């Protein structure tokens, strides 16, 4: 007679061992808990991440914001959950609320409906959802006007290109990405009316090797500056290897491609997190759809590389001042689309709704949606 009992036990034991190790790794990310040394009560803040800070991109930028929050408000304890899929978001959000987190930041578009659902069950918890459009009494949304930083980085690219061809590696044709490409192109052509921006879609947010591949394709047709809307620095590395220039995105990408990166259009969530947590603690927070301008510090440019001349810097500063003062915004007419049709009349400023729905390319973009 065979006795399967022992073997089944061994299989289970090995699987449990795996599972524990994986859970252990996942949790390595940074769960801080406890009370302050003086025994005072701390406010618990939860963060739900789509990826992990190891992506050197989107989630990394949010993680830096969380760290900034911890530095600025010592009375805060944070709990983070990494690598949360859209399907699992509702469970994770519920868990964070059950754990006593009073403020929860859901940092991915796909968490929108789960956030609304869970928020309805926990009315005394404040939920903030990044990049979505659904709100409730205790749910607000937040995002930044990245197109303003994109425009400024476009000025740098336009001045730098010698072939008058700028390449742009982009993930998916959605309004957020298209808006960025358009703003960037307006910047490029402000600095250099002869230049064009060539777009290649990768249909992935996260694949360093493919993103690099796409950048190489752009370099091979004569583009000498590479910009991107992806989650990794793959395109920057392609530019570095070929001795060309590039504009980074998400966070300062100069460390990975020091000879190529002139500047990066960066997210800076820290100040927003600090302000929001303070508002909730003071009881002054009310639900809103926050689309933060550059003057709030939520988006910006990373420090310039040594290859950027003072002339270019002062051009960027000049436009930056206009944007920061609110005297001028990027999508101010006249703006033509790819077919040469006037989309925004001279002197007119595009409203937020039109910007959020943008599904057309401005003149000077080469590629199709």
């Amino acid at each position, binding site marked *: 007679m065979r006795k399967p009992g022992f073997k089944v036990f061994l299989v289970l034991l090995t699987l449990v061992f795996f*599972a524990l*190790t994986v859970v252990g790794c996942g949790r390595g990310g940074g769960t801080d808990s406890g009370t302050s040394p003086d025994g005072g009560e701390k406010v618990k803040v939860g963060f739900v991440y789509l990826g*992990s800070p190891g992506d050197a991109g989107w989630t990394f930028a949010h993680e830096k914001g969380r760290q900034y929050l911890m530095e600025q408000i010592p009375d805060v304890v944070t709990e983070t959950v990494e690598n949360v899929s859209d399907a699992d978001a509702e469970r994770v959000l519920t868990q964070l609320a059950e754990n006593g987190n009073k403020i929860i930041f859901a940092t991915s578009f796909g968490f929108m409906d789960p956030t609304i659902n869970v928020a309805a069950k926990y009315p005394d918890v404040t939920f903030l959802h990044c990049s979505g459009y659904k709100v409730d009494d205790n749910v607000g949304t937040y995002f930044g006007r990245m197109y303003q930083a994109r425009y400024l980085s476009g000025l740098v690219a336009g001045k730098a290109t010698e072939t008058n061809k700028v390449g742009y590696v982009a993930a998916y044709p959605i309004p957020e990405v298209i808006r960025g490409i358009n703003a960037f192109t307006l910047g490029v052509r402000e600095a250099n009316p002869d230049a064009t921006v060539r777009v290649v879609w*990768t*249909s992935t947010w996260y*694949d360093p090797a493919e993103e690099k591949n796409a950048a190489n394709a752009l370099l091979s047709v004569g583009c000498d500056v590479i910009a991107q809307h992806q989650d990794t620095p793959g395109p920057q590395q392609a530019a570095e290897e070929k001795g060309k220039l590039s504009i980074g995105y998400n966070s300062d990408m100069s460390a990975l491609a020091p000879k190529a990166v002139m500047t990066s259009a960066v997210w800076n969530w820290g100040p927003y997190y600090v302000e929001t947590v303070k508002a909730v603690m003071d009881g002054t927070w009310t639900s809103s759809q926050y689309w933060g301008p550059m003057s709030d510090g939520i988006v910006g440019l990373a420090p310039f590389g040594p290859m950027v001349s003072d002339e270019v810097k002062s051009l960027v500063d000049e436009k930056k001042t206009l944007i920061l003062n609110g005297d001028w915004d990027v999508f101010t007419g006249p703006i033509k689309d790819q077919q040469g049709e006037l989309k925004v009349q001279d002197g007119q400023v595009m409203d937020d709704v039109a910007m959020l729905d943008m599904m057309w390319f401005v003149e000077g973009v080469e590629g199709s949606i």
Partner: protein
Amino acid sequence: MNYDFLVAVLATAVVAGTPILYAALGEIVCERAGILNLGVEGMMLVGAVTGFIAALSTGNPWAGVLMALLAGGAMASIHAFLTVSLKANQVVSGLALTLFGTGLSAYIGKAYIGMPLPNPFRPVEVPVLSEIPFLGAILFRNDPLVYLSFLLVPLLWFLLFGTRAGLNMRAVGENPAAADSLGVNVFATRYMYVIIGGMLAGIGGAYLSLTYVPAWMENMVAGRGWIAVALVIFATWNPVNALIGSYIFGGIHALGFRLQTLDVSVSPYFLKMLPYLFTIAVLIFVTRKNNLNRIGAPKALGLAYDREER
């Protein structure tokens, strides 16, 4: 489409296909011996991160390859223990290995994210051969790991179809009971090829972190392990077909990107779908009974071998 365009696409296809090729060769060896290992993605990730760390700390990319090989083998030995010794479900164990590898590689690599590798493999032109028109530019201006894969394909093909060891491997995958009765050690054979398969997957992962990108980023394998698993079926468990298949799988994106730069509007989604469409077509063909023997799908694939159930 001119000459330069074609050369550029094909040259990129070779580079993009190489990590998939290593992993697929490993999986072919493993499946030929009758064990399905769905942990390829996890083994590649662990190979990528350990290879990167070893190359960075020793200053020698070959040390990275060696490390990736050992790490991939170690990962695979877990699968071998579970499926060969404990006769666990191969699908479950393989999936667990992928989850485990994803978590483990992220944990090990935390401090190395986004660090540049000062000493990656660089392209080396092969004298004489690189001067061959067309083929020279595509095949012989690559890095050493690509050349290694060129050698590996005929070597594995010969091992599989030209040697007694290969015959034993296939026998174990086709009919382990018969092989056992002829004195082949089924358990040792399966252990060996599962581990060799893991080693090759490890090198495939390291190719990404040592040459292609080259840097460590979490989850940087980005699904190539799964493509390799599909490719094995596409290649009908034959190393030579795997070479062709991996260049098609790898090259299809490169082609898509290049077409976009020429304003040829082909949906990137459509191109992305193609390799899987091919795989489904092959699957349909393979599963027709009278094609089975000719194609060489291992009959005992996925089944645990138990001497007492003979």
